[in-house]
């Protein structure tokens, strides 16, 4: 493969910069974006496992009420809260931006590292501290907060809610630290993408993975401030007795000192952050899955330009839809019109993305590799989750469905499983670049089929519980007359599947470790991919990524199966041959 690498003279032994040499500077206090990426990913997966275990505990209670004495309502709400918060923020946001973002951005745009490596390192350590602070809340008096991951005041800081003593404070502190960590990392990613691309790498030649991560990071930089401010104000309410979100309140017979505040203000601030946040975890998945589909179908991504504009459009629109989470919150009812329209408009760019993924498969040369399997599973689960989102976005339909299991089913389909499937696919795809070895496919198949079929069996029927009207965040509801007996059977069924799926994740983790030592050697470019990260001199790439000479880019990232060319792919750093007639969208620019 290396003979197609042009524009550079590479001899792997001849480094410009030999990089750090001691174990400590290489793997612990490392400023290398690749090491930081791995640190981020391992931390995120570890904390994700905690959230997974919490989901088992919740499911045990829901599937077999009155069986497990050690789960009381306090505990249940604490599990729900921590499960939701960890999964959304500390797992998905961290792994997509801190993990994949860190690893892929410099490699894909042809940079040697992030522009400010030291800040990048700090970002990881702050993230680790935020995780530790969050975990410490399990061990304080009263335990972690049980206010729901939305943390709505007044209840989150009042007795009657578990963890109102310390849990909520630690949660807010942890979030603030996370935001600082994210800002340090995010500034780096954005600046690197904008200012440190390789020669010839125009924005419109970047792989969609980078686009997804780029826009998601910008959204994070603009959305997290609202959470920060909401968090600070709530902390003041809790610790200083201010009344930002607290009106006059009689809590369990006792008059509190608060007066005049507005609980809805917090909800607006939270969702001004919260809705962009759900797209922050979706856009990187959109981008990565586009690349996986294109590479493993050996075909260019269909409608690249539309894909880019769709990502940008979704990113921009997601700042004006936040109150679709508040249709029944008692806000000004006329907001319903505005937010229903904006919300459904987002479906258009999203739909374009779905069409283009499917159309990329059309007339492709589809290799059903592990990444491809996960990508197809992603499309299916995302379509289901997205379409159920349309129910909720259509304001009046949300009235009966809000706060029921329909919502739970919606967001587990669209966020709890679709992006997670992309994470898996992406790990299968880039593992060879990170370690030099392929993951085991047999274990992969077991993991894939159980996870995919299992989650569908779990979440699809869950929608129907929502139609019945089963409310979410309920510790128990056996005695509700309108819920048929059979619903309990369904719940038990879901629980059993959830446990099986959970167990299979251990197989995946085992695969990660096993293949590191025993996996098949991969070579520098096992998937015959075009993007720059596969064209590095060494695998895994060394410090500084490119050896002595920077790569030069001549074409977009999707020159697969170009007619008249023998190989079915042309790497981005290969110049145009004379008389090459087919051109990607941005092929007339930049290569001087």
């Amino acid at each position, binding site marked *: 493969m290396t003979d197609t690498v042009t524009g550079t003279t590479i001899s792997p032994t001849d480094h410009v910069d030999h990089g750090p040499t001691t174990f400590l500077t290489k793997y612990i206090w490392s400023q290398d974006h690749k090491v930081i990426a791995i640190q981020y990913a391992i931390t995120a997966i570890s904390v994700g496992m905690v959230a997974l275990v919490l989901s088992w505990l919740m499911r045990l209670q829901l599937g077999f009420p009155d069986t497990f004495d050690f789960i009381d309502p306090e505990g249940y709400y604490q599990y729900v809260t921590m499960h939701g918060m960890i999964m959304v923020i500390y797992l998905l946001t961290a792994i997509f931006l801190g993990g994949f973002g860190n690893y892929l951005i410099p490699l894909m745009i042809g940079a040697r590292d992030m522009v400010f490596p030291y800040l990048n390192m700090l970002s990881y350590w702050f993230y680790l501290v935020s995780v530790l602070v969050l975990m410490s809340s399990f061990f304080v008096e009263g335990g972690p907060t049980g206010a729901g991951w939305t943390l709505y005041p007044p209840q989150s800081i009042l007795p009657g809610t578990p963890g109102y003593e310390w849990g909520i404070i630690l949660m807010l502190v942890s979030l603030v630290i996370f935001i600082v960590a994210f800002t340090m990392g995010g500034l780096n990613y954005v600046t690197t993408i904008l200012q440190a691309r390789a020669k010839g790498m125009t924005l419109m030649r970047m792989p969609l993975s980078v686009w997804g991560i780029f826009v998601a990071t910008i959204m994070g930089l603009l959305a997290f401030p609202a959470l920060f401010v909401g968090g600070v104000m709530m902390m003041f309410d809790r610790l200083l007795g201010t009344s930002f979100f607290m009106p006059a309140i009689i809590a369990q017979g006792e008059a509190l000192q608060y007066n005049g505040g*507005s609980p809805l203000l917090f909800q607006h601030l939270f969702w001004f952050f919260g809705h962009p946040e759900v797209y922050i975890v979706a856009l990187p998945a959109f981008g990565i899955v586009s690349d996986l589909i294109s590479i493993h179908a050996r075909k260019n991504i269909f409608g690249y330009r539309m894909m880019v504009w769709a990502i940008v459009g979704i990113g921009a629109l997601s700042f*004006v839809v936040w109150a679709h989470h508040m249709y029944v919150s008692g*806000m*000004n009812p*006329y907001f319903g019109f505005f937010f229903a329209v904006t919300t459904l408009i987002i479906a258009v760019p999203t739909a374009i993305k779905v069409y283009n993924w499917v159309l990329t498969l059309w007339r492709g040369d589809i290799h059903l590799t592990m990444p491809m399997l996960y990508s197809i599973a992603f499309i299916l689960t995302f379509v289901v989750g997205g379409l159920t989102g349309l129910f909720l976005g259509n304001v009046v339909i949300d009235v009966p469905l809000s706060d029921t299991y329909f919502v739970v089913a919606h967001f587990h389909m669209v966020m709890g499983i679709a992006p997670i499937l992309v994470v898996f696919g992406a790990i299968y795809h880039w593992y060879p670049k990170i370690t030099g070895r392929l993951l085991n496919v047999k274990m992969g198949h077991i993991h894939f089929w159980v996870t995919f079929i299992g989650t569908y069996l779990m979440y699809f029927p869950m929608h129907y519980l929502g139609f019945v009207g089963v409310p979410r965040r309920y510790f128990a509801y056996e005695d509700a007359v309108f819920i048929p007996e059979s619903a309990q059977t369904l719940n038990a069924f879901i629980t059993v599947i959830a446990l099986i799926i959970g167990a299979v994740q251990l197989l995946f983790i085992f695969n990660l470790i096993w293949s590191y030592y025993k996996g098949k050697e991969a070579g520098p470019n096992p998937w015959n991919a075009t993007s720059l990260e596969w064209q590095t001199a060494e695998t895994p790439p060394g410090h500084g990524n490119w050896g002595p000479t920077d790569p030069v880019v001549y074409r977009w990232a999707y020159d697969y199966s170009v007619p008249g060319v023998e190989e079915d792919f042309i790497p981005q750093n290969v110049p145009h041959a004379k008389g090459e007639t087919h051109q990607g969208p941005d092929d007339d620019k930049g290569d001087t």
Partner: protein
Amino acid sequence: MTTQSEQQEHELHPISTYLKIWGMLFVLSALSYMVDYLSFQGYVRWSLILIFMVLKAGLIVSVFMHMQWERLALKAAILVPPLAIFVLVTLMIIEANYIFSSRVTYFGAG
């Protein structure tokens, strides 16, 4: 990455430019203080405050922060996203009025 001559081109305005802007900021600040000192009320007060505020902010951003001499690519990247805040502010004004009127109606306050 940056050639020095390009830099010079942008940065070497005579000191008097800054002194002039400084003076204008002083005057504008004095004027906004006067709005309070002379106790203008109601819409006059609010519009005057806003006008002076926008002028001051504009001068600081465009001259002191050199936005005026930046290329459109940077100007747009920095000035467009804050529009999202305007959406938030507008809706929060409507929301706050709604809550206030609810309180006046049902809580016998106000």
